[in-house]
């Protein structure tokens, strides 16, 4: 069923009786050509592109909970391609371009909204770094602008310009950055994949992998064994747990990242903003809530909930930047588990097991990567070659000394 404004009106006038399920609930088949473990954003996008762009069939997505229940369901919805390093920027720019055509592609309004992102600058050194980054972005075909203090003041005159501990000196802006309605991304990919025959199997947890002579044969699940020629793992947050079934230790730690939303408010912030002198970033949803976050809690965790110090740290950053929000109330906090990798960059690669492929290590940047990650992973699965924008995302980059360390923090995941 195709969605359109016409259809919405027609259904409204006929009591909404014609709307069909957005996806089937199929019974798992005995075997598939491709099994994607993980029905989050990346897994669903992978299945969608495998079917749509790479002409593959007999594909299943196995999800231990509900579709879109991974980090695609609990993030701060930001999209951008303002990366510095050669290993990253082409990939994220590819992703941003996919976002720009996504809704028409999968016929679902995910509210991709390019209202711009600004990274505030508070020191000369930050301006130098922003200049380096902005130039790298443009050289990779992305867009970037350097804003002066006055430019920022024009956009948001009520930020703390006058009584600040770390005055705002400007910003790096990516006008094409913005936000997307995160759940809708999962649903749009799921619906598109389902329409192309992909079996989306919920409440189906992978409990083991059958590996014979170095080759994957299928996976054990809570709904029985399911055979597969190729298995792709896209379970960021649980990567180490799942890959342990194949005997692998990963260059990844699991950490909790909290995020927050305020009560609904009339429009205050149009785009996305990051504070450069504290741990705080914010945007405002179409519903009116300020959606914001900051640093990870900093210790290994699978608990999907965080602690108070980070909440306070984030609020302090928020108040330092925006002293007018003192009486705005924080409504809800939540915590998601991040695959924090050893250099802050992801991995999309084959493994030592033939037919077993891995996609993870997204740190807290996985949402914006969803389309390109799905595409690149589908490419790798279908062609056994990395996609041209993802050639740096190999396991062996650490052994070779080719880290992609945007922040320059080294092999300490909680600092990325």
């Amino acid at each position: 069923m195709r969605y359109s404004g016409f259809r919405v009106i027609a259904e409204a006038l006929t009591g909404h009786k014609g709307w069909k399920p957005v996806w089937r609930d199929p019974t798992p088949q005995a075997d598939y050509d491709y099994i994607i473990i993980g029905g989050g954003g990346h897994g669903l996008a992978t299945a969608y592109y495998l079917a749509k762009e790479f002409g593959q069939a007999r594909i299943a997505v196995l999800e231990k909970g509900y579709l879109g229940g991974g980090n695609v369901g609990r993030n701060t919805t930001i999209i951008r391609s303002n990366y510095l390093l050669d290993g990253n920027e082409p990939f994220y720019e590819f992703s941003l371009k996919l976002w720009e055509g996504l809704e028409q592609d999968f016929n679902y309004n995910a509210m991709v909204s390019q209202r711009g992102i600004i990274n505030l600058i508070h020191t000369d050194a930050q301006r130098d770094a922003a200049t380096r980054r902005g130039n790298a972005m443009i050289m990779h075909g992305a867009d970037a602008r350097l804003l002066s203090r006055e430019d920022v003041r024009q956009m948001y005159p009520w930020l703390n310009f006058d009584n600040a501990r770390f005055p705002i000196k400007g910003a790096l802006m990516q006008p094409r950055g913005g936000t997307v309605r995160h759940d809708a991304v999962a649903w749009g990919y799921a619906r598109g994949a389902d329409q192309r025959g992909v079996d989306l199997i919920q409440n189906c947890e992978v409990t083991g992998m059958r590996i014979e002579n170095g080759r994957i044969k299928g996976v054990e699940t809570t709904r029985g064994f399911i055979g597969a020629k190729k298995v792709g793992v896209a379970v960021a947050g649980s990567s180490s747990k799942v890959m342990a079934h194949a005997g692998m230790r990963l260059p990844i730690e699991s950490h909790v990242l909290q995020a927050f939303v305020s009560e609904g408010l009339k429009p205050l912030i149009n785009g996305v903003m990051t504070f450069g002198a504290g741990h705080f970033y914010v945007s405002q949803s179409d519903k009116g809530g300020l959606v914001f976050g900051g640093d990870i809690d900093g210790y290994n965790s699978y608990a999907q909930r965080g602690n108070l110090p980070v909440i306070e740290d984030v609020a302090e950053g928020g108040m330092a930047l925006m002293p007018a929000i003192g009486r705005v109330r924080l409504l809800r906090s939540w915590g998601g588990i991040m695959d924090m990798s050893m250099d802050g960059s992801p991995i999309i690669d084959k493994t030592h097991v033939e037919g077993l492929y891995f996609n993870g290590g997204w740190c807290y940047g996985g949402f914006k990567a969803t389309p390109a990650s799905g595409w690149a992973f589908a490419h790798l699965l279908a062609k056994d070659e990395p996609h041209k924008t993802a050639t740096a995302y190999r396991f062996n980059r650490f052994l070779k000394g080719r880290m992609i360390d945007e922040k320059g923090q080294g092999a300490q995941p909680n600092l990325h």
Partner: protein
Amino acid sequence: MIIHHPILGPRDAQEFVYLGDASLIDRPDGMTAGVEAFHDYLYNRTNPAGEHQELWYHEQGDRSWLVVTRNTVTHEITKVELARDVARARGRTK
């Protein structure tokens, strides 16, 4: 979180700085081990969902490095030791 410091008793985890897996104690000897051994030491992690031995530094305290045994699913802490003692027990010297 509250960490029961072996010397100082219960202390707020906010006073500490987290490093990571206590396997970081087991640094290979640079004069004998090569890149592969150091690579495994520095980069690969078991990252368990469950009991995890990890290094915390009491920066706003007595500056002790501790090995904390903590469940990464429940956050329950079952054991806290001075990292120096653990390191010695694992045979580290000078």
